[in-house]
């Protein structure tokens, strides 16, 4: 069974889902969430252009609706084993202070209304991790 999740950026203590709830998704068989507020859209993962010298969690960049989105692999960010090549994945696009970030997850499952139903990623910690 899956190993216990690492300390950061995943954190169940610091961020509870806001009144708007969280978007739940799965990675490597476990369910996690992101605050739903900054989520812009969810798209199918079609690969990303690698960026030289980027942090390991950064898969690369992709163009979406004329914008450039920094794509972060949540598995890599959490130190989980990589996805099987060819398996489907989705990208949760979130906006942070005008820039766009895409989180690669195995699949988006549901919207959670109640706090505590799912472990929510600390986005601030995640951002610190990649930049």
């Amino acid at each position, binding site marked *: 069974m899956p190993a216990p999740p690492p300390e950061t950026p995943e954190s169940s203590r610091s961020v509870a889902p806001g009144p708007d709830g969280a978007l739940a998704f799965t990675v490597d068989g476990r369910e996690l969430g992101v605050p739903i507020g900054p989520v812009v859209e969810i798209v199918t993962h079609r690969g990303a252009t690698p*960026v030289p010298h980027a942090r390991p969690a*950064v898969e*690369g*960049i992709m*163009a979406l*609706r004329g914008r450039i989105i920094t794509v972060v692999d949540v598995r890599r960010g959490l130190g989980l084993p990589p996805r099987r090549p060819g398996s489907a994945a989705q990208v949760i696009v979130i906006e942070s202070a005008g820039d766009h970030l895409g989180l690669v997850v195995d699949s988006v499952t549901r919207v959670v209304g109640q706090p505590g139903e799912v472990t929510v990623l600390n986005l601030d910690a995640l951002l610190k991790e990649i*930049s």
Partner: protein
Amino acid sequence: MPDDPTERPEKERSGRDFVAEAEEILDALTDDLRELETAFSAGRPHHELINAVFREVHSLKGFAGLLGFPQIASLSHALEDLLSRLRLGGALDGTVLDLLHDTLDALLGAVRDLRPGAGVLRDLGPLRDRLRRAASSSGVPEGVGLEGLDLPGSIRAALTEHEERRLRALRAQGRRLSLVRVRPHPQSLEKHLQEVARRIAEAGELISTVPVVGEEEVTAIAFDLLVASPRPLLAADLPEEIVVRIREIDTPRAAAAPTGGTPPAGAPPGDASASAAQGVEGFEDLAASSSPLLRVPVRRLDDVLVQVADLSIAVATLERGVRALRERHTDDRLARDLGLQVVGVLKRLRSLQRSAIEARLVPLEQVFRKVGRMVARAARTSRKEVELHTLGAHTEIDKSVMDALTPPLMHLVANALDHGIESPEERERASKPRRGRVVLSAFRKGASVVIDVIDDGRGIGLEGVRGAAEARGLVGPGHEMTSEEAHEMIFRPGFSTAAMVSDVSGRGVGMDVVRRSIKALKGTIVVRSVEGQGTTLTVTVPISLAMVPAIIVRSRGQRFAIPLASIRENVRLDAARVRVKDGGEIFERPEGPLPLLRLDRLLGQAASAASAMTSDGGRYAVVAGGEKRTVGIVVDGFVGRREVVVKPIGRFLLGEIEWFLTGARSVPEPDRVLATVMFTDIVGSTERATELGDAAAVLVLDPEALIAGGGNAGATS
């Protein structure tokens, strides 16, 4: 509803409208004032120019009054007063011209202050008082009376105060006065009236155009034109098909003596109606100013462009799918037809993209005008005599490129004035014309615009540059400097020679800043200079950042874009002529050894550094860099030339790039960040996205940053 919440935005909107409108008027005013100055100094007639300036100031006043900008309205009004004195024959001289320029500058400043976020409104009071004093002291020759003039009462009543004064003044000058009855065709009324006005302007002066009321049948439209001319007006002077008759209404008076300031007896009968007519003039001007142009916020055009680019990526994906389908079902007619359809859609999409790009193009005229204003001001305040020539002002460029280009261009021209052009005395000693020349020329070259800033000044002094470089420890003592080196040197940060420190500007001369802003536009700047003869700075920028010409290269299966402007040449490497020296590779070629850097290593793509390049032939190199350090960047192949859309990469990846370039994870300096943004800019879409396959996002590389960063990141490690 005094507390209507929509009132504020409404007011802000009208403010924006006013600023846009006023800037347009002031631009035209700038041009006409410049022409007026030229005509005046050349002793050419300039009455029409004064009229043009007057009309522009008048509509500015109308706008300012209507949209609620009393300060500007009142200054325009005072200026209009002074101009109307000039129209009536008041003396134009250098002082008045200076005052006109000052007022124009103040109006420009005042309008700028209205932009959101600008500072406090300046006080225009003192200038207004100067205008009033000038207007009251400007001697207007007193006109003569109108007695003995065969002028029908209805026409006389229709004359405005100005027209009547003009009539008196022209009569006093002994001009022939005629009434011309024209009957323009109702369908081409405007055109006919313009044509007749133009012809009259060649023969004399049109004082007034008065519609004929009551005399003709109801259906016909006729006008009486009151014309003053130095010789009797002939039918041949006018377009005969619409002229009904020409009637002279006055025999010239033998050098009519001024009547000594005696006001004409009794108030002119037309006065009341004339001033009433003037009251609504502002509205008429507004109606007349409706043009076939539509003002659109740039933001909306940006959106269109973004959506078109996005659509072209989607269609390119579709095209790829259809192509795969056709390959699988070669005999299927449906698949073939579908393929043709998609190709047709792509073609139309490309033309739509071109239109979206073109919608954002504006003529360079606006920048040239600003530069012209600056040159005129600088020439008036310095002891220098300079004339500015502009060529190709109609050349079009993207609005955002133009906006970003304006400051560096102003800087270059200011430099040419301050450091290039010598004082009149110095020029005479060098047997040059006293008056210096600055030429600003622009032309389109493919997807780029080339702008030359040429001056015939003293040029870049090799000795001066060498001395300054030595003093700063940039070169060793006694270093033999080539002119290329010297020209490169002036772009170094903080570099300025004693000879270049301006007595006018006092700026430390930021040629490095200029180059950086131009590079941020994916452009280049090249300097050519002959000591004693002048300097030419050539700025090349893409017409639009939506289509930067670039070479797409391949490295380890990944595609990268390199802006064409930063590439000197492309070479094919011959493995036999590549040798290893000091841990680096050198390509021996007839014109000299070319140091090589391998792109895959620069980008950290290389699996192992052991794979010697010499083992796999058929590689290519992109030659880039400055005069001093030219380097070949080794790539696996060229995909081709494309026009690419450039997007900023976003802040998340900046830190990585910073580390790559400097070898340290420091707080990014603003300067470096600028360079890094360039390195990491992204191609969002390309003209032929299909050929780039899935990778719709491609990194744009800045070879100079790569070369500079190569040492830090250890390209040879």
